[in-house]
Each structure stands twice: as structure tokens, then as C-alpha cells.
């Protein structure tokens, strides 16, 4: 049984993008803040902080999750993947990211990390998703720049080239 008192700061360790890392957190520390302030991984953006906008979406044990609705202590021992894991070490974009660039699927880019992580999970389960399925997954995100058409086109590009 894991028990942490309200004002206690404890060491929380997890695997972030393949590396075992740890930092201090209180029970109430949200995973999104833990990633950004505790571990310095600022690729994950914090928007509404109540699960509506989707900007903070990350993968926890392979599953797309709102990191603002997850406590850091809940992710203890888990595999967390964020947008930083997508491009190659030399900066080469992965196919999903490249499709976003090609299709004007982002403008300010605030919502993009969350959307990329949602589709990283979804396309791994359903590589040939239909446009209706893509739009359904996209309802879990808010983008105020693009009008979504570019995002749908980008994801369709990836599904088309999937075997």
C-alpha cells in the first residue's frame, strides 16, 4: 500500500520516453506539472486543467490520457510517452509529425502535442482509421487556429500510407 500525507513531498519515479527518471511531488501534483516542472519535459502543454481541451494528452502505458486529470503519484512506475519521443534524435520528424507539417495541421502549435499523442495511440490500434473515426478521436481536442480540416487531412495521409 502506498500512502502519502497531504503536505509530504515524495520521490516519484517513472519511465519517460524510455528513460527512468524521478523527481519530488506532493499528492496533489498533476502529472502535467510534474512532467514540465519536475522533469523539465515542456513539450506537453497545459491548457484548461479540467480535461476538456486535450492539449496535455500523453501516453501512460501506451494509452492516451489527460495528464491534467492524472496525479503524478498515479503514474508512479508507469511508462509515460510524450511528444518529445516522436522525432528522431537528429530532429527528423516522424511520419505523423511530417504529415502535420505538410497539411498545415498546426498554426500556433499549442494543441499539437496532445493531438499527436492521441493519434499515436489511436493509429497503433487502428492504423487504417476512417475519416469518421479520425474525426471522432479529434472531438477530444480543441484547436483554435486550424479549423481541424488540416488535422484530418494529415491523419488521413498517414492512414493511406499504412500497409
Amino acid at each position, binding site marked *: *500500500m502506498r500512502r502519502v500525507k497531504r503536505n509530504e513531498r515524495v520521490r516519484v519515479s517513472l519511465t519517460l520516453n524510455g528513460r527512468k527518471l524521478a523527481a519530488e511531488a506532493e499528492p496533489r501534483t498533476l502529472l502535467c506539472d510534474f512532467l514540465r516542472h519536475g522533469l523539465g519535459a515542456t513539450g506537453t502543454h497545459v491548457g484548461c486543467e479540467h*480535461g476538456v481541451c486535450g492539449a496535455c494528452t500523453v501516453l501512460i502505458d501506451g*494509452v492516451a*490520457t*489527460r495528464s491534467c*486529470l*492524472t496525479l503524478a503519484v*498515479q503514474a508512479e512506475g508507469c511508462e509515460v510517452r510524450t511528444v518529445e519521443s516522436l522525432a528522431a534524435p537528429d530532429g527528423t520528424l516522424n511520419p505523423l509529425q511530417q504529415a502535420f507539417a505538410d497539411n498545415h495541421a498546426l498554426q500556433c502549435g499549442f494543441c499539437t502535442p496532445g493531438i499527436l499523442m492521441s493519434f499515436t495511440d489511436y493509429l497503433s490500434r487502428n492504423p487504417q482509421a476512417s475519416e469518421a473515426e479520425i474525426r471522432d478521436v479529434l*472531438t*477530444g481536442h480543441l484547436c483554435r487556429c486550424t479549423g481541424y480540416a488540416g488535422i484530418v487531412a494529415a491523419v488521413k495521409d498517414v492512414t493511406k500510407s499504412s500497409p
Partner: protein
Amino acid sequence: MKPRPFDYIRPDTIEEAVALLAEYGDGARILAGGQSLVPMLNLRIVEAEALIDVSRIAALDVIGEVSDKELGNRIEIGAAVTQNKLMAWPRLAEKLPLVAAALPHVGHFQTRNKGTVCGSIAHADPSSELPLTLALLGGEVVLKSQRGERVLAANEFQKDMLTTSRAADELIAAVRFPVTNGAGVAFREVARRHGDFAIVAVAAVAENKNAVRLGVGGMAGKPVVRQIAAKESSDAIAETIASWADELEGYEDLHASAAMRRDLLRNLAPLAVEEAIRCAA
């Protein structure tokens, strides 16, 4: 916003979880998926002395079939089972077609990954899909505490808007949905955007061509269920539903007036009844 401080406890067993509930009483909140609770904590609508995280208790992450001579077979879903896990359960469409029809309307893909079936029923939002399907199918809620176990029918469990019969020391260990082999089902709702809370949701089950049960969410403090005589003409069914809408009145909130709710019910419910009968035929 950020939540106020609370203790965090992650028990490994159901016994530990109910012991913690007995210890903290009213001040404790059960955390499973956190998709309703954590937003309320972040917005400081809800306060908790302690969160008891049951999401890693393996005994609660189970979907199983329970046979009962009196009540018929039921599908029992444990407190740690997420909505997407149930959606991906291979026998869902065969055993619980109404739940299969309702689940895509519950939140979004991303929130269903964490949000649990029991959590949604525990939260007891009046327009929420899973409490509606549980009420319509005549399901049950299994409550465990150090005092023992009790099983409540859905309509005894959910009392009113966000209010249930759960005692402070009780854990919602599971919910049970009756199996509806071969029944015709339909689910419809209207929401501002797909995945938002429904303004009005309707569900229908046709056991045969003559008996249709209709359930409505978003018209009262909890789901309401009514038997419709399906033998009647579609005009007569529409009239029955219209007078039911007037009787229920509905309520006003940020999203819709009571008059709009009545109108949605008058328009959605006949479609659901018709669809359920067609499926049963």
C-alpha cells in the same frame, strides 16, 4: 486550477480499500479513472481529505458473467474497468447491445481510456449515459464495506442529481447489467458537441414487438424509465411520449431550457422506440 491538498493512498486489495474508507469516512473519495473527480478537484468544486486510488486493485479490474436463477444472467463489471476496456470486450455487442450503443457517447476516446464504468455510475450525473442504461436494464450496484456487502437496484442506488445511496464507508465494487440476448435496442442523445454531456438522452429496449421500455436522461434528477405499449400506432406512441414530456417538465441549466428538453424528448424518443422495435423484429 490546482486541487487543494489531500492524502493519497493506493491500497493493494479491496479489504485495504474498505478499511481506509472506514478510517476516513466522509472525507475520503474513491479515485478510479478520475475523469469526473479530478476536474472537480482541480476546479475546487469538491474537496477531499484523502483520495483512495483503487485503479491498481487487480480484483476490481474484471468483467465476468454471473448466473442467477431468479434474475437471469448478468454481466458484472468491476470498479477498475475502464469504459474503453468494456467497449473492447469481444462479447459486449452480443451480451449488452444497449451498453455497446451507449458507450461511444460517453466522453471522448481519450477520457474513456481512463474513465471507469463504475465511476460514471457513482458520479450520478442526471444526463449521463451509463446510469441511464443501468436504470433502463434494471441493473444493480454492488457496495462493499467492513460491515459487509449489499446489492442495490439501480433505481434505489441513484437518488437524485449527483446523489446516491452509497454510505460514506462503502466502496462501489462492481455494477451488474442484465444480459439482453436478442432484444432490440436503441440509444439516441443530443449534446452540444459529440462527447459533451447529453442535454437529453433516450434509450429503448424491446424484449419483443409488444413491450418496449423507454429510459430518459436529462429530464429529471435521475434517469426515468417507462413502459410503452408498442402495439399502438406510431401516432399514439408519439402522443404518449409527448404527455410524458409534459409530466416530467425537465429543468433549466446553462445548456438548455426546460421547454427545449421537453422538445428534444418528444423528437428523440419516438425514433428510439421505433428503432428498438425494428431491431427486435
